[in-house]
């Protein structure tokens, strides 16, 4: 169960809240492609002992690349790796960059899951977020994807926006569930350091929503989506039964994955490394035949335990029996007092050695993780 992530570090324009590595002023996609394929070829070879069951094209805006360019990437991966006969292949789509034909072409080359960056069905919100698309573009994009034949469609939404109220959030959610979607990722707006949004906050050009409003909105989203047939399998991820994102779940349960492209992260046998987040450095290292790594880490036992705890809490629950087996230590004994405390206060349930957060618990997950962490 291993996965491959490919980063496409280009955008038509940078959104004010985004802190992922991406360039808005570089259009030399073919040059990038040649280096990317070189990286896959040179350094993918060491990780061919495990079958690859997911591919994820993320960004940036991968949908800026035309179908021919995308197919080169997928072909290179299929040539080199031992690919599962029915892999999950996802591409992130910006509604402002595609039409039905493009989506059809992606589908025909084997991409079977698309994740559309809708963010909101309210123009006011989209403007605030400085998205390149409108509500109409987003609606058209979802229909195009449906008509193009995708059976596994996800959309991203963002809540806790200063431009948002529970009412307008509800309108967005109603619009979202009106489509036969399989998956919704609903993120709350995080003001990340170094983003334009952070300086807007510093200059008082934006007033963040209060903790109370944020909590209300998160609770509203969870209840709304649960009521619409989605189940929450991660803090911000909701899916119809059987449509959880396999690729993302791999991240969260310590399965192996390799990332290609600048700033891409990899994890293989308890070792992590991540690529440089500069396309210039990336090119020059590959030019020299060097792996474009920025840094790496080998997880200590303490780090493994803490990751298992917080990733488990975020995503389906912490399985203490499994944890004890993997690390040959009696974790139940260590944590039982804290577990009971959480259950008593209705923050979590504990069944069959799995500690699973309730909605109330999800809302303060970081606090709970901090208290559990060793």
């Amino acid at each position, binding site marked *: 169960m291993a996965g491959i*992530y490919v980063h496409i570090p280009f955008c038509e324009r940078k959104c004010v809240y985004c802190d*992922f590595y991406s360039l808005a002023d570089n259009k030399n996609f073919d040059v990038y492609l040649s280096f990317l394929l070189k990286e896959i070829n040179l350094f993918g070879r060491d990780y061919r002992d495990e079958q690859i069951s997911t591919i994820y094209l*993320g960004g940036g805006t991968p949908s800026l690349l035309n179908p021919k360019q995308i197919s080169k990437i997928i072909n290179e991966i299929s040539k080199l790796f031992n690919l599962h006969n029915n892999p999950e292949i996802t591409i992130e789509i910006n509604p402002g960059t595609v039409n039905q034909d493009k989506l059809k072409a992606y589908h025909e080359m084997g991409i079977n899951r698309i994740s559309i960056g809708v963010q909101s069905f309210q123009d006011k919100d989209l403007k605030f977020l400085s998205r390149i698309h409108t509500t109409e573009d987003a609606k058209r994009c979802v229909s195009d994807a449906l008509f193009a034949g995708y059976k596994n469609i996800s959309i991203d939404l963002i809540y806790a926006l200063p431009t948002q109220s529970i009412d307008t959030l509800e309108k967005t959610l109603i619009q979202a569930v009106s489509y036969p979607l399989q998956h919704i*990722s*609903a*993120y*709350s707006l*995080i003001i990340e350091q170094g983003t334009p949004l952070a300086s807007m906050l510093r200059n008082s050009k934006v007033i963040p929503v209060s*903790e*109370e409003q*944020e*909590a209300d909105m*998160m609770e509203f989203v969870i209840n709304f989506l649960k009521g619409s047939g989605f189940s929450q399998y991660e*803090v*911000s991820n909701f899916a119809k039964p059987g449509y959880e994102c396999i690729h*993302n779940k791999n*991240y*969260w349960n310590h399965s192996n*994955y390799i*990332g290609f492209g600048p700033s*891409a*992260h*990899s*994890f293989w046998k308890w070792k*992590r490394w*991540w690529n440089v987040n500069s396309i210039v450095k990336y090119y020059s290292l590959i030019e020299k035949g060097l792996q474009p790594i920025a840094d790496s*880490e080998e997880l200590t036992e303490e*780090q493994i335990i*803490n*990751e298992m705890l*917080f*990733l488990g809490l975020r995503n389906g629950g912490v399985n203490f029996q499994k944890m004890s087996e993997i690390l040959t230590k009696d974790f139940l004994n260590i944590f039982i007092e804290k577990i009971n405390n959480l259950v008593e*206060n209705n*923050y979590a349930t504990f069944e069959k050695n799995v500690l699973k957060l309730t909605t109330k618990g*999800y*809302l*303060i*997950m*970081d*606090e*709970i*993780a*901090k*208290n559990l*962490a060793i």
Partner: protein
Amino acid sequence: MNNIRNFCIIAHIDHGKSTIADRLLEKTGTITPREMKVNQVLDDMELEQERGITIKLHAVQMNYISSNGNKYILNLIDTPGHVDFSYEVSRSLAACEGALLVVDASQGVEAQTISNLYLAIDAGLEIIPVINKIDLPGAMIESTKRQIIDLIGCKEEDIILASAKNKIGIDEILEAIVKRIPPPSGDENLPLRALIFDSIFDTYRGAIVYLRVFEGILKEKDKIKFFTHGKVYEAEEVGILEMKRQRTGLLKAGDVGYLIAGIKDVHDARVGDTITNAENPAEKPLPGYKEVKSMVFAGLYPTNSDEFELLRDSLEKLRLNDAALVFQPETSTALGFGFRCGFLGLLHMEIVQERLEREYKQNIITTVPNVEYRVLKKDGEIVLVDNPALMPPIGDIEHIEEPYIAAQIITPSEYIGNIMKLCTERRAIYKNTTYLDPTRADLRYEIPLSEIIFDFYDKLKSTTRGYASFDYEFLEYRISDLVKIDILLNGEPVDALSTIVHRDKAYEWGKKLCARLRKLIPRQMFEVVIQAAIGSKIIARDSISPLRKNVLAKCYGGDITRKRKLLEKQKEGKKRMKQVGKVEIPQEAFLAILSIEE
């Protein structure tokens, strides 16, 4: 002996003591300009540099050839510049025959300077007045001269005008030192009597004693004896203090130098004690020895209760360097095992706290500092209470006495109103006012010590735009109408937050304290109710609503490391919290009273 001069510098903080000292070192070639770092040389402890005050004293010997061609040995003995350390100042002064009185031309004479000046005059020192910073735009040379003349009755031409920064007046100072300060007297044929004016601790050598020999000779291999405790040691190494220790094997009457004698505990080498020869002892010690007495007390607790032993080790190591630090173990239901520590004053407490954190990497919680109360119980027993939590039950108390200090405040007269207001708030009793000159007043008050260990000094500074200066000394214990306020979190008393205040202030304090704690304690997974109580009576209440949302609902893709590092950072933050019952309390909360006015 005729060519030795022992002197010190009396100055208020920032009046330029260290800069003048540096210039003297430079001029005498004791230090080359290249060795001179940006900061002043004498303040070599990191903390001292940051605070710009000399906390521990040192001494340094300089060689000087005067204008008439004679060679002199000048011993500069440094003195601490804060009211907490006035006893150490008095011992440094006792080791000298003269003192430079340095006054900032733009500031004039300050309270600290006056009290130290009186100490110096009492000790019979020759005073050389120096007005520093004469080239500053705001220099008030004439009025500063007037103040100095009024204070010490010198002639105007005795006052040296200087600017240490721009090397003005340094030669005049050096000449005045050799011409005006008398050489030391004392018979080297008499039995040894040497005054300890400081000691530091060296891990390898033990205590390094800084001393001034008054009579007799101190040689290596001599058997020496300390008057206060009578212990006998062998002098291993004896020498003088230049920029580094310079071994000479011998110190004679009049000399200033150091002694290493395998003394494992600095408490055996107390400031003010007299050393004599064990085989040929002097009859009497030099006068003036005093046991240092703690004025301020606080509980020091490890944030992580497993680190109690580590904290004990650190305190013991620190005490080797700091003979004024007193501590003994205590327990708190809220904070677990820790130590009740006694300090000379609030600054001393802050220094200890910071050194524990910086040099010994201890994560500590300090409780609100308090004074020591004398409680007369109804059964006639008198108990000393240095921890509010240990105050006997109200019903058992006949009366409580608290320490009062005699305070001296020197201020430009326009701020007298502000000062009177502040002093009234602090239960001060006005004694009298004298004028140093038409614009500067010297106010005398008697104030409960407990009222000044909180932010009195800062308040005084801000209400007088930094112009007032302050000095105090212990006066006596007096009966006061005091009560203990307890703080309860979710119904459980937190003993470390108990505090003793005057009854008239109790309600207001209870209310403010609860409000302050509500701001300092972060929201938790449940509601936190804060109450203030006197005995079983609740006098104030506040509450903190439970945390509703604390989760980063965001996708970091495969970057798990970033999320984990965030968690690790939060976990570190949690380490600095203290768990009391179920409530997590940040360290700042235990000092809530100190910031109660904010």
